[in-house]
């Protein structure tokens, strides 16, 4: 039997290393970490992709710390945020978005189990915060972490603002909110409750502070302007919610009408339902235009709330014994308005329906009645720039009183941006030079990043670029379908108690969701590039983390960039 030799099958006698195939290329691959769409879309500016990547390796404590860098209250947002991150998730193109909201809740609950990372006092300047809703709390939290002494003033008896007054217990248990506030208090934030701006708290007192952040919220009733709305059985929805959230259990009578289609309307409806009412939500547009979170609408209906569309109130007629006759006009949908939603157009057709209680949830005006005249107001809100800067020196503002996107997440984002603005303002006043502009910390076109401002990102990123990874940039063929875990687990009770409705995901299921994350734009060392490189020109770095490309042999074919599942490799002509 003859032994096979190199000449039998044309094997080179010398090494092929002398053939530097790298000389053929006119483009070359580079590892560039890019921005995941969830990170860009998050109004808070959380590094969602970053904590998912840590969770993939079961590094839960580090994931919690990363999350807390941008979000002071993940246990709250994990329950009440409308999670636009999930709409942006590139996994929507495969088998449904990663359940980011539920993962955040799991991490948020984990964060409450121990003190937040300590924030030693390092600065002298005193900062005052007016309002202890999510915007005020976020500003106070971030400033405390930056080392400032902060005092928060709150008109109500307890801090929390709309979180406490507006959001029902079945969505956000008070125990969770109180623990969350404890964590912020432990950072050294001083709370002064029961003082109202313009009342016990006079404007000139605030000028003693080196900087002030104003986040008074939006609590002022916005009149409908229809006859009979002053009737005792026609109530502001927020007042009603504040009563119930404060422990009262008012008699709602038999039939309750809720006017509006937003989250306050859903909260009113489900709260009234828990108090025994037969509840109908009357909305002047249709389901598609409702601003409420979709899950809230579904839950309301599941609990027996009925929805009536294309009905706008025109008058409330008092009847005997405190009962009302509510009169509505039938609407049709017309052209889209400034919000992009189709607007309601009156038809002239009217109808009446009896009600024991009417709750108005059609929006509120910013609580700006006690501000001095030199604070500029624009379209009913305090005029601010992105960093919360007002027209008055040292006074910053944010939250519902200064913005038009009134969600908890937007308020948290605004409070954080103001903290960046205040930090820069105070440091400039101190004489620090060469401070960069905080807007340079922007995550693509999303929110600003506290981590970038501090310059101590624990997540190592390789030559990051501010480009968002879109659906076309991920390679779905490398991901096996894995069904999304239902992130909405009903507690099984009927709508008669104020016990938390949604049980959330178990830690195990939440971790499984983290494994569904594509880690868009950020190399997680999956090694596919290493496998696909036909020239074996990719290898691990000396330290073992990440990869390097041997440009002597990379011939610029682009297969690595094409196959990278998460868009972390791009082709460039630079440097050639």
């Amino acid at each position: 039997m003859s032994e096979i030799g190199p000449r039998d099958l044309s094997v080179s006698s010398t090494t092929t290393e002398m053939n530097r195939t790298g000389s053929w290329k006119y483009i070359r691959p580079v590892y560039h970490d890019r921005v995941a769409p969830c990170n860009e879309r998050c109004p808070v500016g959380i590094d969602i992709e970053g904590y998912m990547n840590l969770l993939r390796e079961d590094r839960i404590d580090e994931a919690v710390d990363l999350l807390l860098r941008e979000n002071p209250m993940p246990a709250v947002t994990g329950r009440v945020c409308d999670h636009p991150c999930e709409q942006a998730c590139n996994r929507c193109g495969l088998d449904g978005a990663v359940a980011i909201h539920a993962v955040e809740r799991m991490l948020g609950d984990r964060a409450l189990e121990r003190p937040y990372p300590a924030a030693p006092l390092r600065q002298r300047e005193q900062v005052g915060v007016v309002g202890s809703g999510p915007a005020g709390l976020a500003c106070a939290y971030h400033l405390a972490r930056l080392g400032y002494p902060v005092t928060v003033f709150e008109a109500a008896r307890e801090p929390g603002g709309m979180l406490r007054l507006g959001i029902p217990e079945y969505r956000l248990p008070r125990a969770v909110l109180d623990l969350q506030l404890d964590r912020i208090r432990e950072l050294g934030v001083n709370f002064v409750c029961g003082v109202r701006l313009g009342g016990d708290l006079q404007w000139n007192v605030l000028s003693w502070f080196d900087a002030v952040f104003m986040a008074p919220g939006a609590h002022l009733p916005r009149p409908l302007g229809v006859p009979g709305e002053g009737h005792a059985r026609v109530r502001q929805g927020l007042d009603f919610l504040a009563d119930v959230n404060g422990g009262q259990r008012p008699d709602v009578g038999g039939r309750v009408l809720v006017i509006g289609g937003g989250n306050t309307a859903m909260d009113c409806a489900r709260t009234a339902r828990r108090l025994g009412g037969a509840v109908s939500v009357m909305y002047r547009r249709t389901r598609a235009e409702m601003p409420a979170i979709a899950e809230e609408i579904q839950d309301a209906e599941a609990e027996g709330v009925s929805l009536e569309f294309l009905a706008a109130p025109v008058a409330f007629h008092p009847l005997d014994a405190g009962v009302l006759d509510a009169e509505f006009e039938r609407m049709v949908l017309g052209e889209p308005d400034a919000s992009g939603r189709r607007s309601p157009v009156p038809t002239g057709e009217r109808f009446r329906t009896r009600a024991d209680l009417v709750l108005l949830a059609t929006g509120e005006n910013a609580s700006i009645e006690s501000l001095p005249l030199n604070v500029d107001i624009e379209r009913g809100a305090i005029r601010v720039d992105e960093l919360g800067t007002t027209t008055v020196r040292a006074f910053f503002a944010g939250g519902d009183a200064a913005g038009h996107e009134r969600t908890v997440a937007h308020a948290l984002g605004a409070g954080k941006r103001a903290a960046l603005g205040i930090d820069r303002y105070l440091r400039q006043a101190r004489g620090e030079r060469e401070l960069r502009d905080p807007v340079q910390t922007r995550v693509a076109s999303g929110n600003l990043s506290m981590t970038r401002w501090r310059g101590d990102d624990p997540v190592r990123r390789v030559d990051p670029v501010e480009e968002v990874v879109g659906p076309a940039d991920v390679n779905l063929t490398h991901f096996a379908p894995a069904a999304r875990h239902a992130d909405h687990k009903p507690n099984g009770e009927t709508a008669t108690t104020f016990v938390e409705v949604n049980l959330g995901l178990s830690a195990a299921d939440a971790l499984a969701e983290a494994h569904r994350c594509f880690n868009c734009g950020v190399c997680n060392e999956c090694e596919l590039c290493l496998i696909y490189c036909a020239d074996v020109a990719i290898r691990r770095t000396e330290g073992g983390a990440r990869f390097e490309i041997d440009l002597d042999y990379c011939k610029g074919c682009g297969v690595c960039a094409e196959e990278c599942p998460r868009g972390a490799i791009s082709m460039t002509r630079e440097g050639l």
Partner: protein
Amino acid sequence: MAIRKVIIGNHAVSWGVQLARAEVIAAYPITPQTQVVEALSEMCASGDLDARFIKVESEHSAMAACIGASATGARAFTATSSQGLALMHELLHWASGGRHPIVMADINRALGPGWNIWTDQTDSLAQRDTGWVQLYCETNQEVLDTTIMAFKLAERVNLPVMLVLDAFYLSHTAEPVEIPDIAEIDAFLPKRDAKLKLDTSDPHSFGALVKPDAYMEMRLALQQAMREARVVFDEIEEEWEQQFGRRYGAVEADYTEDAEIVIVAAGTMVSTARHVVEQRRAAGERIGLVKVKMFRPFPTETLRAALRGVAKVAVLDRNLSPGHGGIFAEEIRSGLYEVPPDDRPKVFGYVLGLGGRDIRPETIGSIIDRTRAAAAPEREDLWVGVEA
């Protein structure tokens, strides 16, 4: 412990590949082959077979993946049929020229058009000159045994081996099969030990430019490997028989010693011919049978020995080389030409059963009768059972 199971021919291939511990399987589905790799994919998924299963976008890619895997020293397998095999054609040359001991199962299926999924040997025979060993099978037991022996043969001589079985008559027909214990197979077929393989720590080019001054020597080495394959096959069968008690032979000759007419066939029609020959023998007719298992390398000497001195040979071809005739008949005529005229049989060629048309005992009976009646073969092979 060996077990006995009733399995279809396709799964006999799968079992054989599992027992042979193939390391890389790359395949694209095609009827009637799909069950072969379907079962293998399940074995890979369940962990019963520790192999990398690569789904590919075409048979061309399947063979390319097998070549790549084989070049690194892995034991590689694929399976295909008909159009799929035709699509692989370019890479079949590359597999043999690169001396990659890949094993492939081809389930004989007719080529379209007219679109036809039934059995026909033309697909494998059309790859005659690609440098692959070709082994045809008659029963499911033979399929399983041949699959395992094919790996050993391939790796001994560094040539790719194609095992061939009829669509449906074998691929989808269940028969009892003895499945050896994997420990016994491990003793028979150790892990592949490739002498020349791709190694990224010592990179060499494989299959690069070879100038006229060296190409012929490469082809000669290939031809010598084919010659060796003929010898090594018998050695491997001998070893198999000692361990498992079964052997098939590159050529099997029954009742040829005193035969006036010998039927020559390959594949499942051999079984039908056996039945007819037994009946005729019982009736006192001197009819013999030759089964051709090995088509490449062509076992010329063995066939000459079996057929020398027989008056008439009737070759059954379930295939067609258009413009010439049945391919087995053509090869046998060529192989017998050097037999001295007195001992040289007259070769009658019959084309039949194309595209899965049934070959019944009476079909073969009519061929025997016709061969006996004819003084000499027709100028062209006769077509049996066709509408005029």
